[in-house]
């Protein structure tokens, strides 16, 4: 055995070199993390700003709403009053079932009234809410129409 190749000093040096070799990646990584403390800025962070604004609005609205405990406390009282109360006729036009006798009656009243009065009086049954035809028609596809879908029927504009 070559005595110059195996001696305590070489073994001692190699021990520390081995430790350094094993841990060098971790040390370099720690250095990068420690000396690069600025927060990351990317698309995700930019989108998060808008999301947090929306989240604050939702949280605020939820806080303003009745709490579930209040609703739960109110239910027995309302349930107790309900059998003894007399049903009242629905008077709000937006709550009338389309096509029902009440709706027909309200429609007749609205037709008899002069233009413009019905809207202000609020007696006309609401027109079915549908988006304009342009909004539901997809643009023409570029593949010769193979992927084209049937367009939705045009919405009937509400009568004035």
């Amino acid at each position, binding site marked *: *055995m*070559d005595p110059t*190749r*195996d*001696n305590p000093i*070489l*073994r001692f040096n*190699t*021990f520390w*070199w*081995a*430790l350094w*070799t*094993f*841990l*060098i*990646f*971790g040390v370099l*990584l*720690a250095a990068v*993390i420690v000396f690069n403390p600025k927060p*990351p800025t990317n698309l*995700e962070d930019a989108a998060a700003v808008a999301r947090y604004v929306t989240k604050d609005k939702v949280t605020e609205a939820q806080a303003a709403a009745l709490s579930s405990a209040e609703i739960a406390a109110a239910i027995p009282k309302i349930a107790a009053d309900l059998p003894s109360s007399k049903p009242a006729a629905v008077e709000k036009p937006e709550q009338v079932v389309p096509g029902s006798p009440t709706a027909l009656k309200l429609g007749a009243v609205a037709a008899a009234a002069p233009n413009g009065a019905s809207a202000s009086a609020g007696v006309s049954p609401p027109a079915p809410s549908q988006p304009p035809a342009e909004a539901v028609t997809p643009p023409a596809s570029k593949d010769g129409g193979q992927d084209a879908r049937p367009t939705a029927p045009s919405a009937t504009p509400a009568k004035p």
Partner: protein
Amino acid sequence: MSSAPSATATSDATLRAGIDRSLRHPVMFFLTSGAAWLAVSIVLAIISSIKLHYPEFMDDCGYFSYGRVFPAHLNTLIYGWGFQAAFGVLIWLMARMSRQECRAAGTILTAGHVWNLAVLLGTVGILRGSGTGMPWMEFPTFVWPGLLLCYVAIVVWSFIQFRVRDGGRSYVSQWYLLAAMIWFPWIFVTANVLLNCTSGHPVMAAAINAWFKSALMFLFFIPVALGTAYYLAPKLTGRPIPSASFARLGFWTLAVVAPWAGMQKLAGAPLPVFLPYLGAAATVLLAVPLAVASVNILRTIFSGEEKLPKSPALHFTLAGLMGVLLLAVAAIALNLPGRLQDPSGPAALKLTQFSISGYGFEILALYGCFSFIMFGAVYFIVPRITCREWISSRFINMHFFFSAYGIVAIAFGALFGGFMQGSAQEAWLQPWETVTDVVRPYAAMSTFAWCVILFSNVFFFVHLALMWLHLGLRGPNPTMLDSSTNLPAPATQPSH
């Protein structure tokens, strides 16, 4: 004229006996405790596999829910069996090839006990529900620094032995083993620091975790397996490696390509799109070093005209090398990315991304390649350090055949079943139950195969424990698989 070679042979034998004696207890401790953890891992694999086709099994016990028992199975397989087998083989091979006795057996043994304690705490932590949820890193966070310290305390002495090695030359085996020794702390520290010590983006954390799995497989377990096979094949056959150029090519292509692999598992995730495709391309390219190295070693084994000895070590090594070749084919087959937006493209990656084929690939690498070559090394090393021969060729035969049949069933079942599962997932007009119906027979087959492997490993563990208790055979000839051909060891063995 004959007195000088005779004296050299005697001094070589004395040196080898001294090396074996110095490493007897650490090596036997690692191999035996590793075999015990392997049995635990297989039991956990059976439970998790049963749950895939019979979910009601043990459903009243939270400790054995699928989300806990499956990671416990993989982590005990990796850190309990895989690393300890690698430690036992690695420290012995480095000492033998460097021709250096071990002077730190006590430190290694102590670190081995602490390693086992850490694995035990980690496994209990997973079963208690404290796992991190990151595949292959599920042990609770406090475990990884302990594992790292133990690792350093175990392998740093092999580093020193290599530095002061006799003669100054190095073998191909040493390249792989030394590289694995250095690569593991790099990937382990990098992944754990980034995932456990910093608060990065969660999607990037998943990508780092996917990279860690691939890197651990191809930068630690596969190099240890190939380094061991490069030692065993010439040693057992008495023939040299046919091509040094192929050996260099295999080593350096592995070193260059393997670190880029892994992130293909996140194809379609909100990552920079080049990352998954880079990972897929690198994994496909890994077929080159795997095929080059395994073919080079197989040419060593089959280069002679005479009949191969019925050596258990050689048979296990041969089976492990076949596993490496199959792994190379699977790396190509599973990672052809195709055009992810176009179903008519060759979308193997898309089909297998969320299927059981990933598990099949991992088990093929960990058990079909790595473990088989480690078994070969165990059958080679243990008689030398215990000065006894294996007790029963029948035990070894049962271990070999049941393990081989079992792993073939699991690997092919999971790989092929994964494609079927992916195809069922893509058939979006069908109800989702179709997917589970497709997977069920493969899961049942996997359960049966794990039972077979457990049966085989019970023999292995008992055999190994008996050898450590010095109950092996006293005889001049090694135990061969065919008891009628108990041949003496080849006379032209290399001297290390």
